[in-house]
């Protein structure tokens, strides 16, 4: 007797959600885009780096086409001239491994059990200017957390992020902290700029501890992105850059990664609540007292 209304309610909820499903091409919101080199479900991104980088003048480190596999990656610096990349693992935070560029691309390899997040740095020294591009390369690798990796004092200007946990990621509308340091010391009052592939710019100023909170803009346009190779999850690039001038030397430092659309774009909370209530309604007869009937 109670099954018919429940079935009807199920069909209604399904029908309610169908237009949203048709309208929203976003999918797979469980695992979100994160730093460069990390793909959904901890798999490396295989998207070619040939996507134009005209959206920013900040130095970038982008994954290069062809050849990202578990434990290895290809990175290419953009808006910066260098002949090598340095990679720091969470197991040896102060000992960088140097990888030369061959035809503009460095082939990186990670040591086993060296940990997940690796810090990749490219530097360009030119008269009166120093440019640093950094990104976090995610390797599916057991090992230490990146806490010490990010806390390690490194020369020059650096923009250091808080990196997402597994199953998390940078997403539209979220506020994340970025730390600006010069020679390992925080830079209070440093100006930061967050730029996204969709052309949005957000500015922030570091507090007394060198920390600035930046909100990822709600500018995501999944239609402009080709589907990824792993469930079609959309992602877009961003860069957070800081500048500083001292004694005639201009320093530019940037951290780049990827971010994803906010879950609400590809999820329907009302449908979720509807099915929750449906389940509750299905269990409600269990609460009826038999004694009262008699």
């Amino acid at each position, binding site marked *: 007797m109670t099954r018919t209304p429940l079935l009807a309610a199920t069909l209604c909820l399904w029908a309610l959600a169908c237009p949203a499903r048709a309208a929203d091409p976003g999918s797979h919101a469980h695992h979100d885009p994160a730093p460069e080199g990390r793909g959904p479900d901890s798999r490396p991104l295989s998207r070619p780096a040939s996507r134009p980088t005209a959206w920013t003048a900040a130095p970038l480190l982008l994954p290069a086409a062809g050849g990202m596999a578990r434990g290895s990656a290809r990175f290419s610096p953009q808006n910066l001239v260098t002949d090598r990349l340095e990679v720091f693992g969470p197991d040896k935070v102060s000992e960088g491994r140097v990888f030369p560029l061959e035809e503009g691309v460095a082939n990186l390899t990670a040591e086993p059990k060296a940990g997940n997040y690796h810090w990749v740095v490219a530097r360009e020294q030119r008269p009166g200017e120093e440019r640093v591009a950094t990104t976090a390369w995610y390797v599916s690798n057991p090992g*230490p*957390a990146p806490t010490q990796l990010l806390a390690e004092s490194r020369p020059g200007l650096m923009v250091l992020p808080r990196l997402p*946990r597994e*199953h998390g990621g940078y997403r539209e509308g979220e506020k994340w902290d970025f730390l600006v340091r010069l020679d390992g010391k925080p830079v209070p009052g440093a100006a930061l700029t967050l730029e996204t592939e969709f052309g949005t710019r957000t500015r922030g100023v570091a507090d007394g501890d060198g920390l600035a909170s930046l909100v990822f803009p709600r500018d995501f346009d999944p239609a402009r992105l080709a589907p990824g190779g792993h469930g079609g999850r959309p992602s877009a690039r961003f860069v957070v850059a800081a500048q500083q001038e001292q004694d005639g030397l201009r320093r530019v430092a940037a951290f780049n990664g990827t971010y994803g659309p906010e879950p609400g774009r590809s999820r329907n909370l009302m449908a*979720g609540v509807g099915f*929750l*209530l449906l389940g509750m309604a299905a*269990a409600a007869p269990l*609460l009826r007292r038999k004694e009262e009937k008699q």
Partner: protein
Amino acid sequence: MTVQPNLSLSRLRLGVQVLMLALTVWGGNLVGYYMADKLSQALPALSCAYDQQNGGYCILISLQHQLDHRIGEALAKAHHITWQILLPLFFTVLSFMAFFVVLGKAFCGWVCPLGTLQDWLNRLGRRFHLPLREVGSERLHKVRPVKWLMLLGLVFALPLLTGLGVTPHALGNPYCDVCPSRIATTLLTGSPGELALATGDGWRFALGAIANTLVGFILIAALASRQPFCRICPLLAFNALFQRLSLARLAKRPHDRCEQCGICTKACPMEIVEIAKEHGGKAFHDDCTLCGRCAEFCPDDGVIALKWGPWSLFQSSRAYYRQRVLGELPDGTVKPVKFQKKPEARNAA
């Protein structure tokens, strides 16, 4: 261990459950933010990895991902299954075993956050005298295999088939997609994100709809039925695979009155009839969560015991039973609190 009536085994368990719920739902603030800081990625409890504040991950998500992304994909590319591919799976199982050898099935009865929530909801139901629904011995035999089907189908088969490219990518971690702990624990952190259904993919939408319906059903059903989800939980089945290897176990010796008594089965939240009818290894059933209620409510000395290796942590005693039933019946029904006037007050009147 001698447990005073004021500190009954149930109260001790309640205290442990409170601590473990805090650790498994919000413990990331204590043990560390990043995945590598977690207690483990192979906990034998439904400590959900989608909860961004938790202190450890359930083993089922690691298993599904390794079967999908490593083993399934290696097979699909016609690679040989090498030690390098199997190594993460080996380490996951090894980490799991390190925990499991110590506490065994007690992870279900004392640590699992979803088990704790169901337990508390049922206590609430007993407190408000809601009817108690039992599965019953006939239906129990039909329900018991479901957890094995969940384990084989959702944790092992579908992720492997997805890695092989047979089933769609959306079925890469199907158990997590239907797991009620994913929704319940993330809601406890104040995040409704997991409650919202993914709308871009029919499979994901369907799995999410099942999960939401299931969690809604469980939240209400737990008021009237004890541990409704545990009965079909694949982690209970997974833990049952290894339960003989753990130092923590339930021990029962034969006793003349067991066949007629059956109070232990009434006290058992999983309605395990074997605890009353069998002894030795058969009494420690696959469904046992080592909650210890059977030992608490056994009215005979030393018949049922919770043991860790050669040591008896708690064993049944008549004196304990008499004290215990003063406040609560074996089926969890709470006796009403009686208010009595103090003798002095009566004399003064």
